[in-house]
């Protein structure tokens, strides 16, 4: 099975440059604006798009992404509408990989089998579910792989060599290395530590390794991306979105551009990086 994610990373490897992976929350600040923002990302230089599935209790997220989820929920976002958002995006773009990221409960309540069918048909390529470690692979990971979706696992600084094989066993698409112990939006790890960690993971897998958590500027993005197959930016984009809203938290004429401009600047940073040695 080859997904859009596999195809995209193969293309980038040929070009010899790392991937720029963006994260934004589905339905933030409202479903219509959210679709416009997601559509603008590939043109601005995003190679892979992660879309957050809003949840009331995001235990691994910092204040920015927590607030983004609550804005989306307040605007009436649901998992069903998140899938519609992906479907809307796919009308114009059949190449850019889409990864849904979030927590298990909304999917469990939607129904795992129905969700996988609907997600695949909407054009979703992969899933990152924060609260499903390999110990719970029966829940969603194995059914997702069977349904032809990538299941992208987080590896963290606490995932030691002994545990890495278990974490990587059913991982596909790419490995998401969380550069720090902490929540989204926290301070960045130094690039030496990241470089060592990525090298360690690569001793266990041939999958691309992308690094996220704490990357906010084009400079950091470049530094981190030069040690990995990709850099993920979330909180900084969510903050740019939030800063463009009016006092009531509604979208303004600037909202889509605010996200697109930061995306373009970060993409420049990532694309300036040398591809990590394989």
């Amino acid at each position, binding site marked *: 099975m080859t997904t859009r994610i596999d195809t995209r990373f193969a293309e980038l490897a040929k070009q010899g440059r790392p991937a720029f992976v963006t994260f934004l929350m589905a339905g933030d600040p409202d479903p219509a604006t959210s679709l416009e923002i997601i559509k603008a990302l590939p043109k601005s230089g995003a190679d892979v798009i992660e879309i957050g599935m809003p949840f009331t209790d995001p*235990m691994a997220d910092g204040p920015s992404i*927590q607030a983004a989820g609550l804005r989306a*929920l307040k605007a009436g976002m649901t998992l069903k509408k998140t899938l519609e958002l992906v479907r809307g995006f796919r009308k114009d773009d059949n190449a850019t990989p889409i990864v849904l990221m979030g927590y298990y*409960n909304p999917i*469990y*309540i939607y129904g795992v089998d129905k969700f996988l069918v609907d997600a695949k048909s909407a054009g979703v390529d992969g899933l990152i579910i924060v*609260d499903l470690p390999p110990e719970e692979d029966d829940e969603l990971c194995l059914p997702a792989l069977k349904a032809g979706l990538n299941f992208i696992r987080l590896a963290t600084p606490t995932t030691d060599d002994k545990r890495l094989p278990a*974490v990587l066993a059913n991982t596909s698409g790419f490995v998401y290395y*969380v550069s720090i112990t*902490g929540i989204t939006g926290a301070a960045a790890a130094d690039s030496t530590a990241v470089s060592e960690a990525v090298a360690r993971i690569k001793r266990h897998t041939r999958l691309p390794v992308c690094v996220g958590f704490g990357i906010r500027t084009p400079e950091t993005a470049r530094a981190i991306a030069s040690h990995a197959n990709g850099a993920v930016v979330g909180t900084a984009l969510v903050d740019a979105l939030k800063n463009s809203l009016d006092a009531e938290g509604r979208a303004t004429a600037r909202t889509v551009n605010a996200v697109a401009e930061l995306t373009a600047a970060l993409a420049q940073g990532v694309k300036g990086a040398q591809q990590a040695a394989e």
Partner: protein
Amino acid sequence: MNIAKPNSYRSGPDERGHFGIFGGRFVAETLMPLILELEKAYSEAKADPAFQAEMNGYLKNYVGRPSPLYFAERLTEHLGGAKIYLKREELNHTGSHKVNNVLGQIMLARRMGKKRIIAETGAGQHGVATATLCARFGLECVVYMGAVDVERQQPNVIRMEMLGAKVMPVQSGTRTLKDAMNEALRDWVTNVHNTFYCIGTVAGPHPYPALVRDFQSIIGNETKAQMQEIEGRLPDSLIACIGGGSNAMGLFHPFLDDPAVEIFGVEAAGHGLTQLHAASIAGGRPGVLHGNRTYLLMDADGQIQDAHSISAGLDYPGIGPEHSWLHEVGRVTYLSATDDEALAAFQLLSKLEGIIPALEPAHAIAKVVELAPKRPRDHLMVVNLSGRGDKDVPQVGDILRGKK
């Protein structure tokens, strides 16, 4: 649902932390190695007689155990039915059952070399117990508490600060217990290397539900022995309030395989089950939150709903996974009591027995008021008086004087 009856109700969880479909380990990868480390440390400690001996010493001389099993004579006369016994957990040091579990976890943390302890708290009873034992053993203590609860449980906030703990008011979400738990998990994921998360109830990822239950089972074990001594037999029924459900599980678990013993858990029905409440079994369905699958209050999209209870300790949209299982297999009957019923029971017990209960066990007393008159006079009913009401005096005083 047709569920096969197990041979024993006391053999769970399985090695993956499941009680039937409930429980499990639904946590971020960062925490997974810690949870496995905790599981290993706990199974080693359980097998170490020195660990148990040291804990027994503190339970006796520091906590003040065993807690009495007291015949509530006037309440019994007033209700005119079952003979009512109170398991006096409110007499423990720190004023509730919470200390039983905290002592065990702090001793585990010491074994594991952890110097920094974090906890979540609703009513503040678990926070106070944690702050107390951290003071006793010279450990750094940070307690997360919803901003709403900080407001309504001021006496406990002051106590925690006097004991040297740092109380962090949580402003996210609904600003109550569930958000305090989210924030504690965020702290833990950030400070994994030196921090032990002391969970206050029989919930969270495996092994917490089993570990907390084991530390709390002293309540039921003592009750069994005391009732044998006083009445020469087992009790006929047990009643306890349930938020996450640790005091209830502690009382119930040693009796689960005694089929003649009727067991009742009492959830918080808040303003009523058709309005805002905190009764996860009565008004929820199975979902995944805070590391386990269990009954939760949520909407059609799987978003967690606000709970409401007059009692901060029961104001949580979930319940421990073992309770969810005991409900599904039918071993325990889960009832609920409203804010008003709990308030009435709070006053009744204060006036008849000279014991001011916490608002949490007042929910259990409220169902005693309903059940005891329907039982014969030789029926032995035990209610877990899990905490004392000092912390609730300002809040209840305001309500009774019509201020709130």
